């Protein structure tokens, strides 16, 4: 690349990156702001200011961690994080049990109709929860699962299973069939070959599914919002907007800390597994 091309690259990507990442920078700044600094509208919202609205380079002396401490000690935020982990973990386990055999069978055993069946299963992922939440919320009530984490553990696989089946189908297709054929010739059964040969090789793909299926669970809002009604059973997505926003009183610093904390590890994981995700996601449809 010439210097001019390089310059153009930064010139185009720079502003895009700034706009896309801005809310996260802004949340990071706001979560450590003092009440005084936050409440004076003339103070620069981008940085920490002293009581006269001036910025100093030793900005840590003009910021505070009290709101983050309040979030962890004064609210049920830790419980919501824990609930999110429980629901996410259980849903991922159910998803793998259902989607791994299905994904493998569609990629390897089903032959010509495997591709069509795979697409059909993937289409289920595109049915938005907004079409289903009314009957499901009644159903959850009838099953006496209302306000229980079990309701979410039961319903979340409705979108993670089709999603994971599709991804796993893509991953299994990239594994050379000769590998298991060798095992079959050696006298192993299909299931044993699947367990002993295919599974270890596809571990990175499975890990990708784990991460993205978990992220889908953290993202989900409308089920978590309608099925769960008490604070101690909330997950982060429903707990933060419902319990930390009370009427017109916004604890903005604590609120923004609460939104930023789950986002950062997810973003790092997304980045680490992005290339694999692309491979699996498009592998099913695009060569």
């Amino acid at each position: 690349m010439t210097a001019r091309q390089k310059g153009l690259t930064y010139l185009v990507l720079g502003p895009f990156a700034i706009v896309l990442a801005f809310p996260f920078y802004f949340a990071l700044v706001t979560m450590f702001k003092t009440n005084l600094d936050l409440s004076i509208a003339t103070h620069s919202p981008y940085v920490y200011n002293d009581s006269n609205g001036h910025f100093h380079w030793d900005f840590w002396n003009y910021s505070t961690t009290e709101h983050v401490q309040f979030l962890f000690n004064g609210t049920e935020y830790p419980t919501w994080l824990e609930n999110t982990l429980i629901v996410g973990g259980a849903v991922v386990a159910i998803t793998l049990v259902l989607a791994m055999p299905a994904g493998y069978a569609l990629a390897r055993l089903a032959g010509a109709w495997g591709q069509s069946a795979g697409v059909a299963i993937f289409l289920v992922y595109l049915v938005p929860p907004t079409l289903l939440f009314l009957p499901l919320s009644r159903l959850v009530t009838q099953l006496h699962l209302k306000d229980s984490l079990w309701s979410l553990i039961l319903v979340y696989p409705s979108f993670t299973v089709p999603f994971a089946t599709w991804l796993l189908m893509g991953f299994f297709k990239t594994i050379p069939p000769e590998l298991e054929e060798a095992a079959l010739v050696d006298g192993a059964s299909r299931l044993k070959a699947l367990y002993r040969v295919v599974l270890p090789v596809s571990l990175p793909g499975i890990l990708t599914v784990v991460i993205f299926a978990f992220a889908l669970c953290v993202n989900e809002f409308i089920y978590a919002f309608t099925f769960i009604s008490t604070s101690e059973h909330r997950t982060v997505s429903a707990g933060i907007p419902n319990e930390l926003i009370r009427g017109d009183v916004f604890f903005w610093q604590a609120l923004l800390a609460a939104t930023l904390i789950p986002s950062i590890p997810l973003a790092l994981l997304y980045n680490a597994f992005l290339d694999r995700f692309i491979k699996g996601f498009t592998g099913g449809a695009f060569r």
Partner: protein
Amino acid sequence: MEAEAAPRWQPGSRRWRRAFEDRRVLAPALIAPAVVFMVLVVGVPFGWAIYLSLTDAIGGSLSGHWVGFDNFTNVWADDNFRRALRNTLIFTFVSQALVVIGAAILSAFLVRDFRGRWLIRFLVILPWAAPVVLSTITWRWILDSLYSVTNWSLAKLHLDHALIWLLGVTHLETGAQLPLQWLGRPNLALIAITLVHAWRILPFAVVIFIAGRASIPTEVEDAAKIDGATGVKKLWYVDLPLQLPIALVAVLFGIVFTAGDFAVVYILTGGGPSNTTQVLPTWAFQVGIQSGSLGEGAAISLYLFPLLIVVTAAMLFFARRAQVT
């Protein structure tokens, strides 16, 4: 032969295992659990939603009296519903138009090799990785009525009055114009919601676009080079036709994710001010859960379905095309 050599104490299980080696048995057996589960948690509720939409069911019950298509005609007669339908279409198509333009530009530059690429990619991916609800709360703070960073910056740049002139906003009650109520004025709130949707879908589209570029065989690049296709010519005759199918798939995904989204509107405006920013999912929630008219709520959410059918059919068509190229 193997069967004869094997010990005889498990004849039943052996036959069972033999059958399991057969693809025609094994494939359905492995797929069945996932399919059965999906039928139970997606198929049944979906059928139920259709049934409910044809009854006068109210909150707390799972059935009602048959009323035919009354719910569909009743909700259609409501101005709020029509506005919700219109908003859903505006948010979906305007935001996706922005996403396509952004993704085409971003993906073209992100595939280049330059220093700091990892960091740029990390920053670009952020809106997709962060849970929607949580990042939308941050947007609500960015667009806050009193402490909005956008208003603060616009004022510092002396652009606030220009923007007011451009958008023609005033406060109906007081006649005042500043500070700009991003989420409190209907037209401003529509703009804000559209932009937040575009912001959160863009990284996903970029990722798909990059995958689409990678799937173009290198021979095509070489052939284009030999034939002397460069710059705009190459973009128009080589890159665009090859990328079009996968770009369309990305757009169709974006449409499904935006049209069915509940969180962005609910968190940013709650459908307000006075129901001017409702979309079908939030209006279905309002009518079906909060007002308890289960049947009408189901009918509202089902109005989304024709759009999804069209989009899905288009997606299948273009995905197949993409596979061929």
